């Protein structure tokens, strides 16, 4: 008998396919509902529509529109500029859909990082083996979950593209750490060379760095506006979440347009966040990704305004200014690798006193009265960090609230009550 006669898919496959379709639909609805609620806000401006459009478009079509092969990565320490310099588009994989968790959950441990569970579910709906969304996946092994991401993907039946692992030398103070991370960055460069099929020189890398520094300039101005309570955290997070969904040049252009609009508004309304308003808080902890803005919504509902944050999905999206004094390829690579590694405040690093400094810095203290530490259930690194931070900030008289939650909506009322009580302790009317 000839073997090329197509066979009917088994019932199990059909059931899985139906489940995928259903979850995809639910995830799409989640996005739609969130976008609609954002558009209905009184502070919605037409300039935000660019960012909302990016977030509402299906991922595959969005990446196809960029017209460059995409390389996905998991954590913020992989130098984006290096990927960009190779003519590839860096896309950060993240999961913010509560619906997607339902697809991957049966295959995964019960207590697990909800962000990665959601991401795996989201990838299952994308059918990675079937399309060419990403050329490769870069995984800086920042936590146990990311170390095991490949195995977890297998458990979910996912067929990942080429995977490149990066080991983030977790003892930053060691004299060997920067050298090791530079080695990791160099091997990433080699990996990207094999993907793009070409070698890059200092000029390409320098151009990519300049492009990202331009984006950082706009981003930095957005942070300034947030500090002055002129840009709510929720919009800031929308803008940050859309960063990887278009070319960095287009995104920067849109940010500049938004800044122009917001600054025009500033001439009419002035609202300075530096006046020690009691509702000003510092939001820290596990990242918050679109469309799961549960925490941000609750903070607003409780009358708390985030003037500063330490989330890798928000203010730490870009590593900050990269100053270069050695313009050779080696010098540029060193500058990038050090900026991403030494400047990273992720709690994965053993010596995190620098990260604690961010909370206790007396020069930023006057603009906030309390710290909300958001811990996603299963994210033990941020859990541990919250324990290290709490006594230090309380010593300085700063109020501290640790909030442990996940993507489910069930605990929203309890959380709201706690946040309102915290607000009352800060003096929020």
């Amino acid at each position: 008998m000839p073997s090329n006669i197509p066979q009917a898919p088994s019932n199990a496959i059909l059931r899985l396919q139906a489940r995928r379709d259903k979850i995809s639909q639910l995830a799409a609805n989640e996005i739609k509902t969130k976008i609609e609620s954002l558009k209905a806000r009184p502070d919605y401006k037409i300039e935000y529509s660019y960012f909302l459009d990016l977030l509402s478009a299906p991922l595959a079509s969005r990446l196809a529109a960029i017209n460059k092969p995409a390389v996905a990565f998991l954590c913020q320490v992989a130098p984006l500029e290096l990927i960009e310099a190779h003519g590839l588009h860096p896309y950060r994989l993240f999961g913010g859909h509560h619906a997607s968790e339902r697809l991957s959950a049966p295959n995964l441990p019960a207590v697990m990082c909800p962000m990665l569970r959601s991401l795996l579910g989201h990838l299952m709906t994308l059918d990675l083996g079937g399309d060419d969304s990403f050329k490769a996946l870069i995984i800086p092994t920042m936590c146990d979950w990311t170390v095991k991401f490949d195995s977890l993907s297998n458990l979910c039946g996912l067929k990942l593209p080429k995977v490149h692992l990066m080991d983030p030398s977790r003892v930053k103070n060691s004299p060997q750490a920067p050298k090791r991370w530079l080695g990791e960055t160099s091997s990433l460069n080699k990996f990207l060379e094999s993907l793009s099929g070409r070698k890059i020189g200092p000029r390409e890398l320098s151009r990519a760095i300049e492009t990202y520094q331009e984006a950082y300039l706009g981003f930095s101005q957005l942070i300034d506006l947030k500090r002055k309570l002129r840009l709510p955290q929720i919009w800031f997070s929308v803008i940050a979440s859309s960063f990887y969904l278009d070319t960095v040049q287009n995104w920067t252009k849109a940010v500049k347009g938004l800044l122009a609009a917001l600054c025009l508004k500033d001439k009419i309304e002035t609202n300075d966040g530096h006046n020690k308003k009691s509702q000003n808080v510092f939001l820290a902890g596990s990242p918050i990704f679109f469309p799961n803005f549960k925490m941000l919504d609750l903070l607003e509902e409780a009358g708390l305004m985030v003037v500063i944050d330490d989330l890798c999905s928000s203010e730490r999206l870009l590593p900050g200014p990269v100053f270069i004094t050695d313009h050779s390829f080696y010098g540029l690579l060193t500058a990038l690798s050090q900026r991403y590694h030494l400047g990273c405040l992720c709690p994965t690093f053993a010596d995190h006193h620098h990260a604690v400094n961010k909370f206790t810095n007396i020069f930023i203290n006057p603009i906030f009265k309390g710290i909300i530490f958001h811990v996603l259930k299963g994210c033990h690194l941020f859990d541990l960090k919250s324990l290290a931070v709490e006594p230090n900030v309380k010593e300085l008289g700063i109020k501290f609230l640790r909030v442990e939650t996940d993507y489910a909506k069930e605990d929203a009322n309890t959380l709201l009550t706690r946040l309102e009580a915290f607000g009352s302790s800060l003096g929020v009317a």
Partner: protein
Amino acid sequence: MTIRMLRLISQHVFFFILTFSGRLGISLGPSLPCLSCPYVTGCGGVCYLRMLQSPMGGLGMNLAVLFTQRGLQALAAFGLFVVLVALFGQSWCGWTCPFGLLQDYAARLRNKLRIREAILSDRAMFTIKIFKCIFFVYLLIIPVLITLGLAHSDLTLPYCAICPVKLIMPLITGDPTYLNLDFTNSVLLTESVVLIVFSGLVLVGMFFKTRFFCLICPMSLLISLFRPIFLLRLIKEPAACLGCGNCRRVCPTTIDKSAPLSNDLKLSTKHIDAVRGFAKSCQGCFNCAQCCSTEGSLGIKFGPKVIFRASRSYAAKLLKRKSFH
């Protein structure tokens, strides 16, 4: 205007004054805490190291002349040197030294050619810096030995005789006088050979390593001895530092100001001087404070007043102007 821009202007203005203004009759005297070379025809001031080595102004001075007019002149010159150093500290190296500017241009050329900067290990840096101490002791001791009759009298101005600035700065102004071997006697021949070889090494060194000569410059060591009385100084708030390493990367002598002063989590809300920040090889350029994007982590103080404090917005301003790019 950024501090970096101010510094560039200052460097160029001082380069012009210290190299050419003597031709216009302007002289800033013999007490300058920077390498203003008297061997440049028409220089506008003289490096204090020369005074320190001369029989009329250094340790080699005969005690009998100490309380004469000559001796008082030497003391006045030393006093003026101390005042100048106290006022501006190590910034003399970063903001006024003509040879420093020359080294900065060498680094700029290297960057234009995209040639990699030489990375020196901590051990190599330490070894190189030993030469700074050797030169300093050499320039202090030889005049004493001459006075005591224990050294050849042609060794007068012993360090100037081998200082690469003596050969390179006149060359920059088109004067090749010192680019020859002096066969008068074996002492002068040796000095001229050392001068040419040393200058060649320094030229190569300053091309491949930013501010290479500053690592071995005895003036930088002399200035650093007065650190406790500096009015213009760098300050660090260790409890604000996020350890990003920007300061180290932009430091011409790669001093790491982000290194923790201690490993415990004990926090200090009091400003303290970063001991590492005032390392002997600091150039006082304040690149570190400007490029620090953490609010208040680094700053500049003049006397009791903080005149600059690092901030994200200032670092962004530098980025916008493409400084350090």
